């Protein structure tokens, strides 16, 4: 089936089987491999992307369902080679080790802080509870997200 949607600000046309997930479409057809596959059944959150402003599990969405949508992946969160405030905060707080969960953490946190720049620690933990990390123990991730709030309150917007 032909699908047309916007990814990181660019319109793309792809020809896909209906059963192809959005995650696999992004990774294989568009070579945007920043979106990771951990469980492929909607538990781990490593595949999180932003569709029409909302964080979603791209392994649970079909590419054909993205027709007409605006999708933002982790690659689309930076304008250039500089780190965004959220990325810089992850670096500062050692919020990643192997990095496998990180794209999902970043997109989820970005979606959260874009809507709720005043989110407190409990809210950040609640929202990130849908993303699994085997390395860090989560504390550094929560610290990084909280520390990045200032940038969102100043209405610094990245490409999303």
């Amino acid at each position, binding site marked *: 089936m032909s699908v047309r949607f916007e990814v990181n600000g660019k319109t793309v046309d792809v020809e896909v089987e*209906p059963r192809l*997930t959005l995650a696999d479409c992004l990774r294989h057809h568009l070579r945007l491999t920043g979106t990771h596959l951990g469980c492929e*059944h909607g538990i781990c959150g490593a595949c999180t992307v932003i569709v029409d402003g909302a964080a979603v599990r791209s392994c649970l969405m079909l590419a*054909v369902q993205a027709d007409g949508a605006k999708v933002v992946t982790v690659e689309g969160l930076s304008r250039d080679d500089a780190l965004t405030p959220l990325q810089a905060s992850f670096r500062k707080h050692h919020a990643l080790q192997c990095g496998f969960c990180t794209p999902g953490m970043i997109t989820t946190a970005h979606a959260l802080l874009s809507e709720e720049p005043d989110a407190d620690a409990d809210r950040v933990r*609640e929202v990130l509870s849908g993303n699994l990390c085997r390395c860090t123990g989560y504390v550094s991730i929560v610290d990084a997200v909280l520390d990045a709030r200032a940038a969102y309150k100043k209405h610094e917007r990245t490409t999303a």
Partner: protein
Amino acid sequence: MKLPPFEYAAPTALADAVALLASRAGEAKAIAGGQSLVPMLAFRLAAPTLLVDLRKVPDLDRITVSRDDVRLGAMVRWCDIEDDAELATAHPLLKAAIAHVAHYQVRNRGTVGGSLAHADPAAEMPGIAVTCEAEIAVTGSAGARVIPAADFFLGPLMTALVPDEIIVEVRLPAWPPRRRWGFQEFARRRGDFAMAGAALFYDQDDSGKAKNAHVGVIGVSDRPQRLAEVEAVLNGRVVDEETIRRAQKAASASVKPSDDIHASAAYRRALVGTMVERALQSACA
């Protein structure tokens, strides 16, 4: 695993969606948010030959509060319920229960209709539907009908829907402002499937005694169920410490959970008693 092969259609009218489902003699499935269905496909527990996406069918995503009822269209998402300010007073039990559904990303896609049609025994929305005596409006090639929640859930992942029927909306009876209610659920992380949960409400007569008690539980049976024995403990009594103790015991005694990898039957039995106890305590507070 990767998903099994299927055809896909996204009709723009409800009648077309029904016709598509009917055309495959039970081999077609409707898809809404996909948050329950796609994992089933990924595990190859289901292999429909056609998915009928409801996302372009109009008028299925309304939340309507009136004097008579609260109506949730089948495509209403959990985040829509979360964001609806009117529901906090129009149906506080619904709002409290839905706060426990899934995780952030799933809440942006998962729907009321999808949860009801999927009928997981531990899911909150079916629990609320049964507790509140909701009506589920559906349409299929035989026409439209309304199914009472008590008749809708037949077993784990089994409902009274015939293969070409689509849920259109769920109707919850209007909520009187002075009603007492409580919702308690236990899961390892909030958003995981409930190991046991209780949704309950009661009204009070002029002397403060409970009446019209409705006590529903999830996670302890093959479908959500009301506990008549607990309702009988509450009706006609003031809900005090003693009544709550009796209700807790009645709850534990009246369920027959099985052992599974998440909890033993004995644990669930005890847990449901505690959930009822805490829900009643919050109802009186």
